[in-house]
Structure formats: structure tokens, C-alpha cells
């Protein structure tokens, strides 16, 4: 990846992180868009799995710092999702909108699942409702927003390397 594309990717990554802390609180949806996951997946498909895992870990720690009760859960979930996304990118990140949508949907749902299981706050029915109802809805919203982001940044970043 060229230097200019690397800079562009960093800028878009930061923009998405900023959006997560500005737009998401304004929307305040129960099934909210996770711009951090979008940012991580955007980076993951363009970097090696180790770097993606590191980026996920960093993002997770940042988000965990605002919720000390689950400190580390987000880092763990983001690390796994980042590493997995980078490892699976060849399979999913062809020039296919539907596949990209499924990829983001799966990434967000996987993150929520790992996060909820790791933090041990929700249990029983509440955990099931969250995992089977709200998490898929949030994953769908994130996938929709992620597709918009991907289509927007594709002219700048180009197709991910396969």
C-alpha cells in the first residue's frame, strides 16, 4: 500500500473513531451503529493479521476505558475480530457488495458475542435476547453504514488487496 493510501486510511480510520463518539450518542439507538467495528474492518482488510489484531486491541482498550467494569472485554473481542477479519479478507473482500455486507454483519455480531460473553454482565434470558435480537439488529445497522462507508472510501483507498 502506498504512503498516500496509508495516510488516507489513517485519516478515515480516525474519522470513523470520531464518528463513533459523536454521531452514535446523538442517534442513541438501541441497535446502534458501531463505527469502531467498521473502522477496524476497514483497516483489517488492508493490513496483516498481526497489525489488525494490534489495531483491534488498541481500539478495544480505548472503548473499554470508558466502561471500567468490562475493561479488557472489548480489547479481547476487537483483537479476535480484527485478526479474523484480516485472515478471512481474501474470502470475503471481493468486489461484491453483498459479501462485504455479510462480512461487516458477521464482524459486528462476533464482536458483540465475544464481548458479552467475556464481560459476564448479562446472563440467561437477557443475554439471549441481547445476542439474538439486539446484536443482529445492531449488526445489520452497522453493515448498512459500513457499506455506505466502503462505497464512499473506495475511490480513495481502492479495492483491498487480496
Amino acid at each position, binding site marked *: 500500500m502506498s504512503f498516500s493510501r496509508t495516510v488516507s486510511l489513517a485519516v478515515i480510520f480516525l474519522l470513523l473513531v470520531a464518528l463513533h463518539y*459523536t454521531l452514535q*450518542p446523538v442517534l*442513541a439507538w438501541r441497535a446502534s451503529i458501531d463505527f469502531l467495528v467498521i473502522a477496524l474492518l476497514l483497516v483489517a482488510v488492508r493490513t496483516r*493479521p498481526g497489525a489488525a*489484531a494490534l489495531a*483491534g*486491541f488498541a481500539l478495544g*482498550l480505548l472503548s473499554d476505558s*470508558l466502561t471500567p467494569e468490562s475493561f*479488557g472485554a472489548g480489547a479481547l473481542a476487537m483483537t479476535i475480530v480484527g485478526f479474523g477479519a484480516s485472515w478471512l479478507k481474501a474470502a470475503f473482500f471481493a468486489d461484491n457488495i453483498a459479501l462485504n455486507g455479510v462480512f461487516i454483519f458477521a464482524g459486528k455480531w462476533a464482536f458483540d458475542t465475544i464481548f458479552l460473553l467475556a464481560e459476564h454482565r448479562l446472563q440467561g434470558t437477557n443475554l439471549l435476547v441481547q445476542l439474538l435480537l439486539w446484536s443482529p439488529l445492531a449488526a445489520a445497522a452497522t453493515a448498512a453504514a459500513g457499506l455506505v462507508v466502503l462505497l464512499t472510501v473506495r475511490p480513495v483507498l481502492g479495492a483491498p488487496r487480496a
Partner: protein
Amino acid sequence: MRRPARTNPRVDLVLAAACGLTALVCLVLPAPARNTAAAALRTTLVAPLASMQVKAELSRRAFLAHDAALRIVDSVTLRSQRLTGVEEENERLRKLLGLASALKWGFIPAEALQGRGLGDDFTVTLSAGKNAGVESLSPVVTAEGLVGMVERADDSFSLAIFWPHPDFRVSAVAADGSAFGIVTGHRAEGASKYFLELHSVPLRSPLKAGTLVVSSGLGGVYPRGIPIGVVVSEMKTTEGFAKSYLMRPMVSLPDISSVFILTPERARSGVENVWATGTNVDSVRKAIVAAGDSMRIRRDTIAKTPVKRDTLAKPSVKRDTLAKPPVKRDTAAKTPVKPDSSAKTPGKRMP
């Protein structure tokens, strides 16, 4: 589909494992240690993000509060509009009280229950009937002037016609007595139907715009002196021997809620000074206000004018003038006859 060219996949795995392990360690850290680590991140790297989140939350709250504030403003506006209606009603009732005190006797207060059906725009049901002393052909008035007359009286209610009704007729005269005529409703469509017409005014008695027209007392239904309307303009008619005028009614139909029904005895005894009393009272009020203003101006003038002590101390009468005797002693003492003259006559001997 090409596989990604990965260099050192073991490094990637090691990195990922290290990150995962560190995250697990963070998960199992004791609470004080977790809080310390989270606080360190919050106050450094995450501080700008947390600040943005706080601002976003505040923006959202402000947005929601704006909606709530808007609802409150709407509610207050609605209340203020209702308050305006109440104030207007109070004003009307005060005027009616003034009219009641001017009439003193021979009237029946009633509420106008206006119908909303087609064709009954100009009739009204009044909440007083024969039991209250209402009779047919009784004039219906408000503080502003003539409304109409009772067409039919039942026991508890009565039916009255307004001035736009086709059957409405009243003999009228200019307030200064210069011209007589007949007032009817204005035959027109739309909003113009709420005007009046003054017919059969002699050619020799032209009326100017703004002339007040009152009931003349002729005809026996309406006593003289009830304000009917104000001349707006002359109407073009085919009548060659008389003029017709368009009039603006004194009473606005939408404002009619409480009315007075004059009893036949009261109508016969006359009400000529009742509405004029209102004018007189208004004049007196204006005169009192003007007098008050004048007194205030004089008081201010006096307060501003410096007083000259010397002028006040100066006696108005000159003492010397008073002390001065009116008669001069020397003049009085002077004898008009000189004795020496006769005594000193030279001795001339007779020849």
C-alpha cells in the same frame, strides 16, 4: 481469488496472541488496577474522544430539550390566546355592566346561543323567555348598540333576529337629527352581507362618512337613541327622490354573547340618554384626565420657578404716601384777606 501474501505468519499469530492475552489479563485484573488503567487512558488518549462524546450527548439533550421547550412555548401561547379571549369577554361584560347601570331598570339579561346550521346565520336563541318577562318584538341590545329584536318568545327561551336578517327594519335618524331613513341589512354575498343599508334619506339631507345613526323611535318597536351603525359611503341606487347609504354596524356579530332584552315598558319610556351617558362618561373621564394633566403641568411649573424674596418682602403700600397729609397746612393757614391792606389805606381827605 488470490490468497494474500503473508510474510511471517508466525509473527502475526504471536502478535494476536499477545494482544489476546493482554486483554484477558485486563479482564481478570482486580478492580482498583482496572480502574487505574482505565483512568490513565481516559485522561490521556481517550480524553478528546470522551470530550466529543460528552458534547454529543449534550447536543442530543439540547435537541430533545428544544422539542420539550417548543411544546411548552406552544402550551403557553395557547394559554395566552385563551387569556386574550377571557380578557375580551371581561371587557364585554364590563361594558354590559355599564349599560345595565345606565339602563337601571326594564331589561332582561340573556345569553345568545348562536346556531351553526345553514340558513340560521341571522337568528339567535336567547336564554331568557316569557318566564323572565320577554315578549315578542322586544329590542335586543348590547353595550355597543342595537342587535335585533325578539321574534318569538317561549317559556324559557326566545328567538331573536339579528340586523342582517331580511325581516329586520328599523326607523333611524342621524345622531344630530339631520336626516331620517330606514335601516335594513345589506343585500350582498360574502362578507359584505354584514353591512347595513340606510334607505330613503331625503336628497336635501346628505350624510357624511362617519355619521352615527341611531334608532329614531318611530314605529313603536325600537326606542329612540339606540346606536345602529356608522355611515360608510353613499350607495348608487335607482331611486330618484332619496339617497341610500352603506353603514357599518355598531355591533359585530361574532362578538355577541351576552345581550339585554328591553322590556316594552322600558322601550316606551325611552333610552335616549343611555348610550349618550356612555359618551358623557367618556367625556368626563377625558376631562378629568386632562384636568389632572393640567394640574400636574402647573405644579411642575411652580416647582421649577424660583421665588424672589425681595419682591415678597416689598410692601405693596408706600408708607410715605399714607403718612403724607392730604392737606397742606401752609395753604390752609394762609388767610385770604390781608387786614393790613385795609388798615394801611392812605388818608385821603375829602374835598
